[in-house]
């Protein structure tokens, strides 16, 4: 019985906080737009009994999903989000790997402090941190002022409201999610493996490529998922730092919801986004499992 209770807790959690909300959203995605409170129809009225429920079901349809296929906006937005998420993930690896490497190779007594420094930004609100980038990147911002004062540029660079600003914002925000798993992988790496590689004829550089990189692969993969998955649906960063040409599915979803007030289509967009996300999430799970098996 106790065993059952223990298992039931996480499942109840999943059911209450994931499955039930998803079913609600899914149900809305099958509804029709209406000018009412709430702005869709039909609404489930349990007082009408079984007949009412059947009537309710009969009014649901997949019209909104068909609509998504009829306008190229949606698949272009999904694609563009995937592209931005993929590029951001690669950039995050490029920036995060050397940091994680440096941390893992730092003297042991420093590592706790370095880890703390990586996590420290989380103590400040995410919004405030993204806002501060607006102050840094704007045309009259600190970056341009600095570059102009040292004479690198004569005209201010236009960074804010472009995709570059979005990449900067995403890389900045999600960097810890990349650093931490890579650091965990690199820290586990036995120094004697590198010595063994050198002993067997590797230069420092080739030992890095042949030993360090393959052995931190799991960390890089884990970090990539942790960055890619939330970035795909990211809304705040592109809407604050991006320009009108930054097309991401999060913004499309916002517009469906707020500008069109079309909750059913917005829900359909969300359901499709979730389905797209489930693929990398399953891959991520598989990867984790493989790693656990490998570690025996």
């Amino acid at each position, binding site marked *: 019985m106790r065993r059952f209770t223990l298992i039931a807790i996480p499942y109840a959690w999943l059911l209450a906080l994931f499955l039930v909300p998803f079913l609600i959203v899914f149900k809305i995605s099958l509804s029709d737009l209406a000018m009412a409170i709430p702005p869709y129809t039909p609404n489930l009225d349990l007082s009408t009994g079984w007949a009412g429920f059947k009537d309710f079901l009969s009014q649901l349809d997949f019209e909104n999903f068909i609509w998504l296929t009829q306008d190229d906006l949606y698949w272009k937005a999904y694609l563009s989000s995937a592209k931005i998420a993929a590029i951001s993930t690669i950039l995050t690896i490029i920036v995060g790997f050397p940091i994680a490497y440096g941390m893992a190779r730092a003297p042991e007594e420093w590592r706790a402090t370095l880890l703390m420094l990586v996590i420290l930004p989380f103590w400040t609100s995410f919004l405030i941190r993204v806002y501060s980038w607006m102050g840094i990147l704007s045309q*009259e911002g600190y970056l341009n002022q600095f570059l102009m004062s040292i004479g690198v540029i004569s005209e201010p660079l*236009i960074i804010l409201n472009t995709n570059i600003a979005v990449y900067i914002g995403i890389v900045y925000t999600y960097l810890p999610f990349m650093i931490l798993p890579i650091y965990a992988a690199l820290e586990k790496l036995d120094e004697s493996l590198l010595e063994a590689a050198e002993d067997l004829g590797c230069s420092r550089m080739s030992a890095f490529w042949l030993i360090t990189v393959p052995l931190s692969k799991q960390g890089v993969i884990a970090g990539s998922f942790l960055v890619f998955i939330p970035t795909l649906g990211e809304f705040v960063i592109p809407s604050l730092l991006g320009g009108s040409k930054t097309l991401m599915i999060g913004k499309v979803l916002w517009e469906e919801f707020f500008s069109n007030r079309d909750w059913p289509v917005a829900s359909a967009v969300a359901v499709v986004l979730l389905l797209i996300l489930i693929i990398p999430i399953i891959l991520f799970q598989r990867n984790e499992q493989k790693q656990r098996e490998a570690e025996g």
Partner: protein
Amino acid sequence: MNKTLVTLTASVALCAMAASAEEVRVYNWSDYIDEDLLTKFEEETGIKLIYDVFDSNDVLETKMLAGNSGYDVVVPSGTFLQRQISAGAFQKLDEAQLSNKGNMWGVIEDRTAKYDPDNAYSINYMWGTTGIGVNLAKVQEALGEDAPITSLDLVFNPENMEKLADCGVHFLDAADEIIPAVLAYLGEEPDSHDTDVIAKAEAVLAGVSPYVQKFHSSEYINGLANGDICVAIGWSGDILQARDRAAEAENGVEIAYNAPSEGALMWFDQMAIPVDAPNAEAAHKFLNFIMDAENMAAASNYVYYANGNEASQPMLEEDVIGDPAIYPDAATLENLYTTSPYPPKTQRIVTRMWTKIKSGI
């Protein structure tokens, strides 16, 4: 949309708390009141006032349609008000509790009746025009001394926009205000709901959108004031606030606002009480407090928007009542137009078009 996010987060927390009898919750536009008035209300009535802000009608409407917003007083604009009334989002005002109703200005009430017949659900808070704000020096530098700053030609003619792109142009992120302006520019009926007519506006906007740095509904205030941007299609009072901020900062930026000569959109922000307001009685007290001539004058003097309160006019400062950008003369007033909400199907086409204009897709 930035402030929206902050308010969204704040209001999630807010909704979690139950409203007690001694509280009234007001949801108004950002930068839209003299905050001394809020203290004054609390002192006069003993009711605790919780004041939240938004910067987009869309956000407000979504909350209204979702229901149970927890707010007692909200401030939608005319077309949004109309749609929300038809969705059953508001309760009829109880005139018995509104002793100051007589202060309201018939000229405005006649026009707001288009959205709220008999003004049964709402009172006018502020009204204004949608027009063009310019950084005089920078625009003249780009286009010469005779830059058409009073004409929509400035922002809808690609030749002008190309030259202005480098100094920064912002448009309101509001399709239902920009499209009527383009239609006015083209000499069409601004309030047209005919999708073929609206498509003409799309062509014009597609031509100038590459030169628009950002479509946003509040960033232009700071942008203009700091000199980050040189032109904005925005709301009269916001641009005037930018003008005053720049003057205060003494940063050499000189901002001017003009309602376009081709005609300008006249809009109304209306205070209304949600049908599920937790404290409707306190909400009426707040509305009555706002309709007090002295209070309304204080608000207008602070935010540089015209109000719908005739009794307040003697108490308005000269740079408010005397500024034709705020209180247009009779001739200009004739030239202003109003719009009505798009039906859902048209709304979807407009939004899609708007996305396409903004993102190129």
